[in-house]
């Protein structure tokens, strides 16, 4: 079993392995097997298309959490230039699960803030699996308020299982740190464009996700509670996570159908990790368009629209 492929992708993995094998043989012998390889590649593509045309919510959840999935720094590298990482909340820590700094977007100075997961266990331990502590939300707020002072538009990239649930995080008032960001972001006098690039885990995600635009990559997820958490509470078994994912409607297409996201950004065939360059290129074009729209109107109008958008959330009916 190839660990770079998810369980439902194993037939594709097998084809890919066969192609690799043929390539190795091909370089060793005089035989012309190019034709055979082309045929298999075509077959692999068709198979991938068919597998990805009918993904379940749970399969999308697995893709959103894929170990190879591009993280914030991948997009920083491919979408922005002149990035200077800025650390710390000025009181407690540098902050590794939320990263950020000034950069340029098509030459324009901007602020970039995002959750950062690790690629392996060691990296994940140092980044706390992308689960921020209160001081990291305060770091994000510090950077956002700086962006406001210097009129830098803010791009945020969401990718976290959730805010860190720990003793010290509670002592330092995780709740207030999240709440404060929600309050301040609702009225920050600079455009904010948030993109869910992987896992949008509850309040820990929302705390850098309030703004003028909310985008989701095609195979990212966004949820009020992790499917596992929901399953263990309502189904009394974490193994029902896939049922919970369905019921909660965590996938980008479902969230779009509920009108809670402005745009779903299509991913390359097989997911963002199969072609990071193509993904970054598509995303950059969308970000450019959204930023342009946000900057085409006055900041007062933008803030009014942001507030009205927040107030529209919830279809609570008036009888």
């Amino acid at each position, binding site marked *: 079993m190839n660990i770079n492929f998810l369980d439902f992708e194993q037939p594709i993995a097998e084809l890919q392995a066969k192609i690799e094998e043929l390539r190795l043989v091909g370089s060793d012998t005089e035989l012309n097997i190019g034709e055979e390889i082309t045929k298999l590649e075509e077959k692999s593509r068709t198979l991938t298309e068919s597998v990805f045309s009918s993904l379940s919510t749970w399969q999308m959840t697995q893709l959103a959490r894929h170990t190879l999935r591009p993280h914030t720094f991948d997009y920083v590298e491919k979408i922005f230039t002149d990035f200077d990482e800025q650390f710390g909340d000025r009181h407690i820590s540098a902050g590794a699960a939320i990263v950020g700094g000034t950069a340029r977007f098509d030459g324009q100075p901007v602020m970039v803030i995002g959750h950062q997961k690790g690629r392996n266990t060691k990296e994940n331990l140092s980044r706390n699996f992308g689960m921020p502590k209160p001081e990291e939300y305060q770091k994000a707020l510090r950077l956002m308020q700086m962006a406001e002072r210097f009129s830098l538009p803010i791009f945020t990239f969401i990718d976290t299982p959730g805010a860190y649930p720990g003793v010290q995080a509670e002592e*330092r*008032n995780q*709740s207030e740190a999240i709440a404060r960001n*929600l309050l301040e*972001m609702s009225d920050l006098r600079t455009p904010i464009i948030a993109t869910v690039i992987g896992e949008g885990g509850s309040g820990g995600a929302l705390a850098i996700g309030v703004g003028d635009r909310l985008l989701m990559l095609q195979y990212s997820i966004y949820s009020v509670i992790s499917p596992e958490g929901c399953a263990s509470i309502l189904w009394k078994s974490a193994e029902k996570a896939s049922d919970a994912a369905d019921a909660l409607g965590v996938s980008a297409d479902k969230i779009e159908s509920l009108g809670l996201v402005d745009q779903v950004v299509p991913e390359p065939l097989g997911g963002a990790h199969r072609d990071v360059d193509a993904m970054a290129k598509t995303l950059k074009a969308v970000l450019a368009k959204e930023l342009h729209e946000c900057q085409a109107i006055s900041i007062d109008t933008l803030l009014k629209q942001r507030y009205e958008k927040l*107030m529209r959330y*919830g279809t609570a009916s*008036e009888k």
Partner: protein
Amino acid sequence: MSWFKNLLPSRIRTSNASKKGVPEGLWFKCLSCSAMLYRAELQRGLLVCPKCSHHHRMAARERLNFLFDDDFEELGTDVVAVDHLKFKDSKKYKDRLSAAQKKTGETEALVVGAGKIHGLPCVVAAMEFSFMGGSMGSAVGERFVKAAEHALMHKTGLISISSSGGARMQEGLMSLFQMAKTSAAIKAMNKAGLPFISVLADPTTGGVAASFAMLGDIIIAEPKAMVGFAGPRVIEQTVREVLPEGFQRSEFLQEHGAIDMIVDRREQKATLARLLAKLTQQPEPAI
């Protein structure tokens, strides 16, 4: 009348007794010190045990009744939940909603009223924990915004009494976004220079703690209320250690600088009035 109630078929019986609520009956055993208390006396004492001062959970409507001087104008009664996900686990969300409505006599987990506290006009939004764990879905969020809008329009203070397990899972992402919505409403209060006082009652956790409840100009907790972001079980599973004594209780929060003050429920009305008066430049209220 408990023996009589047992004779009734279950659909006629009204069960007001949530696990930690105060059940019907002439006598009541304190949930903390087990003292046998005369129910009428307990109610006169705002459900605080006269022996050990344990604060029993209180229904949202009872809170409005004891805080306001007279009658209050109820707001947002027309706002009710929408099951946009057609959510179903072992039960349908719709059925859970109607069961909660039957059990509590309320239409949602937030009851909002506008009235006067010791003569000071204000809006109070109280959460009903017995209604699906006081969870915040779209209706709670919308009612909260209605409360803030009323305060903004009439230039009065806003008081919230939280008692909630957090966001309502059955409404998915829509519930999560209520955190942003309610927080934005508080920002509007801040900008208008109108006070928002947040009272934390047992328990205040998750999405309610991580939104309006922690955004009070002044945050008051009831004694020994459980307040936190993550539940203790989740934390224990994450850190794999035993949690410190009194962890996530009001006293712990005050010690760590998270809240302004801890106030006994019997002093709550007077304290709120005195604070409101100062923050709105009014003379000291006659209490």
